[in-house]
């Protein structure tokens, strides 16, 4: 499968993972997961952190891996679950809740799309012994769907809806993911951005400046929109 087609380092990780288990995972390593994970995004963060509701279940019940995801899933009339494809959503939007979130959830792995800023890794991930895994593509929803073995439970479904509620899922050989930030807070995206940035100036060479500027616009193309 994927791991055979690449020279990138590959690791398989059993969940729940302790900070100790995450040592040695370098940025750019391909990771597959076995064990329990749960989804949580802005709806859950608002309720758990801002409204002070805390966690709806114990770490033993839902695990310590937070997937920034809403699955393409439905609940059948008999109460059973129909989960098809699962894909991450962009993580940078969730910065503001993370500090408190780590404290109340005890999460050691965050899985999402696109990573977060280097400051967030240094200030929030590193002190909590946590790493960030990014999904690949993005949009390997069908491959990830194959790794889903069982929907264990949902929490806060009534108030948050199917897309925002917590889905607790047992997974096997769930991936691929890439280590975007390691325990030291190094970032794969930052490393790649720096390489790409070296080329950007030359692309604009010889192009006339714009006739009209827009308020708040920047000409610094090394900046990021996140």
């Amino acid at each position, binding site marked *: 499968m*994927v791991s055979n*087609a*690449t*020279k*990138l380092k590959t690791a398989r990780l059993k969940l729940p993972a302790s900070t100790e288990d995450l040592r040695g995972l370098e940025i*750019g390593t391909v990771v597959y997961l076995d064990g329990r994970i749960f989804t949580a995004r802005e709806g859950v963060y608002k309720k758990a952190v801002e409204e002070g509701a805390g966690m709806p279940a114990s770490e033993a019940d839902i695990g310590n891996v937070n997937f920034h*995801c*809403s699955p*393409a*899933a*439905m609940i059948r009339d008999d109460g059973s679950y129909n*989960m*098809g*494809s*699962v*894909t*991450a*959503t*962009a993580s940078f939007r969730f910065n503001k809740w993370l500090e408190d979130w780590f404290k109340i959830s005890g999460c050691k792995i965050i899985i999402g799309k*696109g*990573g977060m800023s280097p400051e967030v890794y240094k200030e929030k991930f590193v002190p909590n012994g946590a790493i960030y895994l*990014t999904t*690949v*593509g*993005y*949009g*390997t*929803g*069908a*491959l*990830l*769907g*194959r790794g889903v073995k069982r929907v264990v439970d949902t929490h806060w479904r009534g108030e948050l*809806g*199917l*897309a*925002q509620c917590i889905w607790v899922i047992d997974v096997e050989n769930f991936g*691929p993911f*890439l280590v975007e930030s390691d325990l030291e807070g190094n970032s*794969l*995206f930052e490393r*790649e*951005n720096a*390489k*790409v940035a*070296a*080329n*950007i100036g030359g*692309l*604009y060479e010889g*192009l*006339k400046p*714009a*006739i*009209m500027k*827009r308020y708040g616009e920047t000409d610094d*193309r090394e900046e*990021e*929109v*996140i």
Partner: protein
Amino acid sequence: MIPISALQSTAEDLMAKAAIEIPDDYLDGLRGLANIESGELSAFVIQAMLENYEAAKEDRSAMCGDTGVPRWYVKIGNEARIEGGPIALEAALRRATASATKDVPLRPNRVHPLWRTDHDNNVGLNAPEIEYSFHPDADWIELTTVHKGGLFGSDYRMLFPGDGIDGIKRFYLDTLIAFGKRGLACQPAIVGVGLGGSKDICMTLGKQAACLRTVGSVNPDPGIAELEAELKEMGNTIGMGAMGFMGSSMVVDCHIEAGYCHTGGMPMSVHMFCLSSRRACAQVTPDGKAAFRTDPEWFTDYSRRETVEWFPTPQNLKQHA
């Protein structure tokens, strides 16, 4: 008379096809980029995506868990008659959207912008969007659904005639680089560019160029076709590949559609149809039969006409026989 039941069941099939089956033209274009990708991480990402398309088809599962915001493009033949009329057609498309959300399943992405109300069926206020177009001398209806991601990769700017081609290139690069970092645009993408029109039509044309033209198609205006090729090449020399990693796989194809605009301006929009470029189309005839395909053939000589009157020629009628 086209039976409404045929339109609704075709629409349901289209919803599933779009979500699950990557169109061949996009797949071929992506493989072409993969063959020359030297960035190790970018190549790994594309390889994983290629395996993902296979998994989606085998498992009849949506290729991406973010199944986008499903919408409809309807082309109505001038002689077509719909059982129950256009109101029945809109009801059928809304029903198909809701039932496919439950059956495929799709992610119920559509919510109210302020109250975040979610009907869990991708139907709501002004959703799904339905756009219409018409075609001369035809008695069929063509339904196309597009499931495009909704957050990153599109932008609009009012340029001026003095900005010229340089201005177009500058804004194009700005958009690709801004949304290409970290792969927010989920590239390699089909990039659609809208040039001219009113502001809203500029956005519409660019989006249609990205979502409704197939990889390899060219604009019939040779000057625009040349610019399409140049912008594609330019996007792939930014140095950015899949997920914003070092590489050369950014643009699977670039499509430009133009519309006449205010004499003082040159509005431009850029849209990126992602690694899950989901579109499916079917022509439904009065006998209730549906012929499925992945090329919507949305832009035609008729839709691109510049004159007051439309003078059909045997050649441009044949084009859409």
